[in-house]
């Protein structure tokens, strides 16, 4: 694969300029901040709350902003221009992912410095990076499968509930068999991994969690690429 950094950067720079004028999309960055401010002042913030903030950043910023910028390219017929240019699919998809990825990382760093959470474990850090890729890919998929920014926003709401706050529902419906599958959501796995690591889990004990998150990510990338390639055809 021969990626042109220049093309990827050109798409990123364009998105950066564009988002600075798009208050609606940018405003979702406030949601994780709101949680961080609300809980961050309570002194010792429990791990559950840290991961509520992390997963809301992943969904409300990562997946949502990504779905919004992709859906808008479709809605305004600008994606076609990118596709008809010599930029490859990988260059377009990478370029289109950078903005939401950077925005998520910055949001998360600021929020977690408010709530005093530092990630030092390399497995944990790696899992978070893989989870970020999962959420960006999920956002891309939503953007590709919806027709407009508004539609993408509507579809993003259940995603924020399930992948951002899934843990809360899990507690609400405790004992229900159906909720068992929530255990395998990447966001829940991420939190479980964090609590295992604080309890001193070994590398081998961490692997199943990392593996589950990685599986979600790979599957979603494959589906996204298939859907993207289909969308190069009109109608």
């Amino acid at each position, binding site marked *: 694969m021969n990626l042109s950094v220049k093309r990827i950067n050109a798409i990123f720079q364009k998105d950066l300029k*564009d988002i600075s004028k798009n208050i609606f999309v940018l405003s979702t960055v406030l949601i994780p901040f709101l949680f961080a401010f609300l809980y961050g002042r309570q002194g010792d913030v429990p791990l559950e709350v840290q991961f509520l903030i992390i997963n809301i950043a992943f969904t409300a910023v990562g997946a949502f902003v990504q779905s919004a910028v992709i859906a808008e390219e479709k809605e305004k017929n*600008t994606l076609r221009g990118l596709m*008809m*240019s010599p930029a490859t699919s990988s260059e377009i998809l990478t370029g289109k992912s950078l903005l939401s990825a950077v925005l998520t990382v910055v949001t998360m760093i600021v929020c977690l410095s408010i709530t005093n959470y530092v990630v030092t474990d390399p497995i944990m850090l790696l899992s978070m990076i893989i989870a970020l890729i999962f959420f960006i890919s999920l956002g891309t998929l939503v953007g590709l499968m919806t027709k407009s920014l508004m539609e993408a926003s509507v579809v993003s709401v259940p995603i924020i509930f399930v992948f951002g706050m899934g843990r809360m529902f899990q507690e609400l419906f405790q004992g229900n068999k159906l909720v068992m599958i929530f255990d395998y959501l990447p966001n829940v796995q991420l939190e479980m991994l964090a609590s295992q690591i604080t309890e001193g889990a070994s590398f081998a004990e961490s692997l199943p969690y990392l593996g589950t998150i990685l599986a979600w990510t790979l599957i979603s990338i494959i589906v996204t690429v298939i859907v993207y390639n289909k969308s190069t*055809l009109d109608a």
Partner: protein
Amino acid sequence: MEEIIKVDSLTKFFANEEALDGLDLSIHSREIFGFLGPSGAGKTTTIKLLTGQLLPTSGSATVFGVPVKEVNSPQHLKKIGVMSDNSGLYERLSIYENLKLYCELYQVTTDRIREVLEMVNLIGEEKKMISKLSKGMRQRVVLARTFLHKPNLLFLDEPTAALDPVNSEQIHRGLRELNQNGTTIFLTTHDMREAETLCDRIAFLNNGEVQLMGPPKELQRQYSNGNIRLELKNGHEVEVQNNKEGAQKVHEWMSSGELVRIQSHEPTLGEIFVDITGRKLI
């Protein structure tokens, strides 16, 4: 003459509706080819098929000698420019910022922006945001964007549809300039004057089929009945045949000072179209 596009019995169905019915075409390198036809004739569908945005139902088409299915690869796309009904711009960015992105995608220097803005008569407007532009100005920005990389082959779907005559004329100059520098142009239009003045060859499309093809002047000659049209002092327009009897009449009107004007009467492309299809071009 080298063929740059070759289309063979191309058919396209949408659900059960036939948009193209066995299209045959051959576009020569470095010509300006006009694809004419009323709305719904299949012009846009043809452009989308030729640029790999749609797959044909049957038949074959090649561009640069490769099947259209494979045209969607960077090595071919860098030689192609496309403006279609689905060419959008970034609304919150300026004209310059929109074009700058494409300079980087096509890897041409930003010096080119000034040149293409000149071609579409938008010098001095580059800082304006797209959302503030009129429909015609947007169309000119899209055109400028397709000119940036001096494509070998340019597909333009109704390039001057939203433009006033002055700007259309400017665009025509730009297209001729590109063409002289080696760009083959495939454009669709329902503007007969545009076809007459700009195109080396045209094809009439109706109900998904090519009805007639050739250089506009040749078609006009072919469909001319050879009559001569006269305008008389009393305001009447009369046609006489180009023969002895006609000459007699002309002589009479001339001697009596009744004749105001003589012109050879060639049918317009619009008239030819109505003649062969019974349909008006709109």
